[in-house]
């Protein structure tokens, strides 16, 4: 009889379903094949004109029905696809999931296409732009545009589609959102509120305005010439992240419930840790103390010492600041051992999927353990001498991986780390 409770007497949380969509494709099979062959999904932007833009590349998901329909429809489709894949793998009814939904998704706004069309359908020049929009708005007969502006609507539709229970939670912790969605699911199961939960991170918000906003903050790479080489975490010449889209979904289940229904256990979600940073809106505390605290909190929550982590799935955004700070955090926690521990960044291939990143990378972390293959950090041609790490450069590596630490750090002082294991520990 397996031990069903963890070191703190709480129900052990198993993963029984995984779903993922990135610029590399839909589903685990295509994504894993591309990821382990070091293929990049970063490509020139074609969704909108790039005139006047300093960054003209991205990891957008351009091959879905909603890819050109705006941020809300695309985020929904991404979330639905990943959610359906995860629920199907778990062997559960895809229209009657029967547990709560935690959705990490980008903040929503009225799309410019709608703004232009509403404004220009009112020809009364005596009114201000705002008045014109409001006049047209109140005469609309359909709710479609309205729903793209409601922060809870994507989760509401998903709840209908997948048959999740109760009030779905939509959350944002910026670039840590996907990890937070998983953490909320883990906590709900540990509290005994449910036997299973569906955690999804989805982001289809790579609009021109989003790109420009990050660009104005000097956050994005401008290495446009060879798109697939632009994202180069831990390299000396890294110059920013590459904006991307995607989704990741996990079916989380108490180990007891999973075993009782004969489900295949794909991995264990052993620990979650977080710590907020009060230093700056976009920059991390120079001593990396909040990231260090988040890593240590995740290890403590999982009941594992530093020596028990086999691999780190890094946040690794390819911005000068993140990679330096993350190295400082990891070397502080893991000491000398960090130089020989594999630490790789999926973002070298898929870019930064923002609200989805924590969930996408948790999905890849679980697959890393199951397949005994570590995806590489590609574009590692010019190592940063100040960052001495085994980044699994350029080529995948076969390795037994029993445990993974996955980091997610975001604007607004958000730091969330997950510890996953192949087997209950």
């Amino acid at each position, binding site marked *: 009889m397996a031990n069903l409770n963890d070191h703190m007497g709480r129900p052990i949380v198993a993963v029984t379903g995984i779903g993922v969509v990135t610029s590399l494709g839909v589903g685990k099979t295509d994504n894993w094949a591309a990821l382990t062959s070091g293929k990049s999904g970063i490509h020139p932007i074609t969704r909108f004109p790039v005139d*006047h833009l300093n960054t003209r590349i991205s990891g957008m998901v351009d091959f879905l029905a909603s890819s050109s329909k705006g941020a809300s429809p695309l985020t929904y489709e991404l979330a639905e696809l990943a959610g359906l894949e995860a629920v199907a793998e778990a062997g559960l009814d895809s229209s009657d999931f029967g547990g709560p939904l935690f959705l990490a998704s980008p903040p929503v706004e*009225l799309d410019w296409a709608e703004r232009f069309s509403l404004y220009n359908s009112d020809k009364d020049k005596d009114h201000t732009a705002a*008045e014109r929009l*409001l006049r047209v708005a109140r005469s*609309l007969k359909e709710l479609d545009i309205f729903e793209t502006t409601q922060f809870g609507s994507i989760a509401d539709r998903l709840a209908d589609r997948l048959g999740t229970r109760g009030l779905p939670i*939509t959350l944002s912790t910026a670039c840590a959102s996907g990890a937070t969605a998983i953490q909320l699911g883990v906590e709900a199961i540990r*509290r005994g509120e449910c036997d299973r939960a569906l955690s999804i991170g989805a982001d289809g918000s790579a609009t021109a305005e989003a790109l420009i906003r990050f660009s104005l903050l000097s956050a994005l790479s401008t290495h446009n010439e060879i798109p697939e080489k632009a994202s180069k975490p831990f390299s000396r010449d890294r110059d920013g992240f590459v904006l991307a889209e995607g989704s990741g979904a996990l079916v989380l289940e108490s180990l007891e419930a999973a075993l009782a229904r004969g489900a295949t256990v794909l991995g264990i979600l052993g620990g979650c840790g977080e710590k907020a940073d009060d230093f700056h809106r976009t920059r991390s505390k120079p001593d990396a103390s909040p990231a260090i605290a988040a890593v240590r909190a995740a290890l403590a929550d999982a009941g594992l010492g530093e020596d028990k982590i086999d691999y780190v799935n890094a946040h690794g955004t390819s911005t000068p600041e993140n990679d330096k700070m993350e190295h400082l955090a990891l070397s502080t926690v893991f000491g000398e051992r960090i130089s020989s521990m594999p630490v790789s960044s999926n973002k070298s291939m898929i870019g930064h999927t923002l609200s989805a990143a924590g969930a996408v990378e948790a999905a890849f972390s679980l697959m890393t353990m199951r397949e005994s293959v570590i995806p590489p950090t590609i574009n590692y041609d010019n190592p940063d001498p100040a960052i001495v790490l085994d980044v699994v450069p350029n080529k995948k590596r076969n390795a037994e991986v029993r445990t993974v630490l996955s980091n997610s750090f975001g604007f607004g002082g*958000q730091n969330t780390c997950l510890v996953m294991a192949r087997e209950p520990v």
Partner: protein
Amino acid sequence: MSSPRDVVITGIGLVSSLGEGPDAHWQKLVQPGLQPVLEAARFAPYTVHPLPEIDWNLQIAKRGDQRQMETWQRLGTYAAGLALDDAGIKGNDELCTTMDMVVAAGGGERDEAVDAAILAASESRNDRDVLLNEKLTTELRPTLFLAQLSNLLAGNISIVHKVTGSSRTFMGEEGAGVAAVETAAARIRSGQSTHILVGGAFQTEHSDMLLGYELAGYLHRGPWKPVWQRQDSQGGGVVSGSGAAFLVLEQREHATSRGRKIYAELGPVVSGRARRRQGELDAEIATLLKQVALPNGKLLAVSGASGAHVATTAEKAALDANPAIATRGFSTLTGHMKEAQFPFAVALAALAVDRKAAYPVFDAAAEKPFEGVPATVLATAIGYHQFEGMALVNAA
């Protein structure tokens, strides 16, 4: 029977058109026949309840911090500071660095002038996508993005007030406020947390914030009316208001061990998602009323009803069906504050329990008197469009 793991309320931070702080709100709200503060001209044909005068310096000491925010984030950060002060936590490093936080948020303000200029130019140009790039790259203030991001209200609270245990932002109108309070309470009850800052803010005095309702025709138009009496007027029934509500929720043992005043105990918090298009709202409200397990005897209800016709009618019918319930629709006096609505309802419920008195009727035509001491108060937020929640607030 009290338990060491009860969730208790030890700090309240409020801002609305009526003023700021729990005392100011109590003083105003117990005045029989209090008239709302209204702004009917600036956004005509819509009426809003505007923010009062606020000296931001009182809670956000650095001008640099104030400049990094627009009004929505300032308002939330300010109200969070009021709650932390009220709970005796502000400035206490040990308590702040271990304090968890759940913020219910929408988005921040866009630059209306830039948007208007782009829209004006769109009248004479067909290459609208290029126009966007041209204008946005040159005219957007770079840091404005940070004033718009949903999770940066929490981020600013961390920076200004040093609350750094954890930081989570829930999005989704009233439902976000319900889930924030519900999750915070569950974390305390299960021992996952000892003290949590929870709340939200809404700044309605911006055309995009009105548009968020009006794209579905939810706003009331024409002369102002109390929240229960808008069914036969023009528009959809919602009159919005700027405001914020933050609560410090604490494990009872944690609060008593540091000798803090307890306003009230937070009892069951329940939430739901009726599939309203399938006509489930009435049944969902009835289910929630059953789940919170109303006590015997007469009961004061602090309702967050928005005025939205369908949802408000359904809520009123459900509450009126129980003759023991005397309802107070506070949106009559504050307007609808979206993500802040449920935390505001819980705060007003806690105040009534603490002061051992009910609020007088806010609308004599639709509400009935409540005599005596309210030992338990029901707080509700039935979303104007989706999601529902309730809580019971008990004497400390």
